[in-house]
């Protein structure tokens, strides 16, 4: 799954981006939209 593979990269974004840019980032949007509670990004 994309998010599982990119957790380290998203963690780095916390330090690299300001709040506004962080919230606009597509990976962050995906993480917050799904958290661990949806299966849409799983390849099933």
């Amino acid at each position, binding site marked *: 799954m994309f998010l599982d593979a990119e957790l380290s990269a998203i*963690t780095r974004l*916390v330090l690299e981006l300001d709040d506004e840019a962080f919230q606009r980032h597509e990976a962050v949007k995906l993480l917050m939209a799904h958290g*661990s509670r949806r*299966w849409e990004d799983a390849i099933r």
Partner: protein
Amino acid sequence: MTPEQKLAHITRALKDAGRAEVGLYGGGEVTFLSIADLLKSKETERESDWLDISLLEEIQDARNQAAIGTAPGALQRLLANLRSRRGMDRAIALRVLDDDRDAIVTAVATCAHPATYAFLFPLAQQVHPLGLAVPVDAAPLASLASSVFGSPKHFALVEICRRAYKRHAMDVDRADKQTKLNHG
């Protein structure tokens, strides 16, 4: 021992351990797994079980929240087991985190789930959980240390810790099934 006897034995043991819930179903009294045990039992490699977990977490948080003011230790129990985003939002909105520093410190020390730890971390960075189910990686912890409590970055880090825990639990379940297959 018949299946009925086994079930009776298990439910009696769960009741004795305070890990059972009793409710009415079909006109009769039925013993259920406690919500904490049910949550644990759902930690499988199946994505659909994790959808159930997200709902059960919200139910557990709502129950613990409702007990505040009616049961001793309820605030500490809520904080130490806080799992859902909805529960976190409600805890912030109701300002249950504002006044009782001791409850927060105790909750961090006794919490077991990485998402709970990540949620409370900015409020008690010097406190270490004694029995975390899965360690939180150094990188998210370092980022949590610099994040503002309740901010989008803070909540994103909670989700990162939650997702890492889920991935670990799925791997454990998959390995467990494979072991049983190999020795079956």
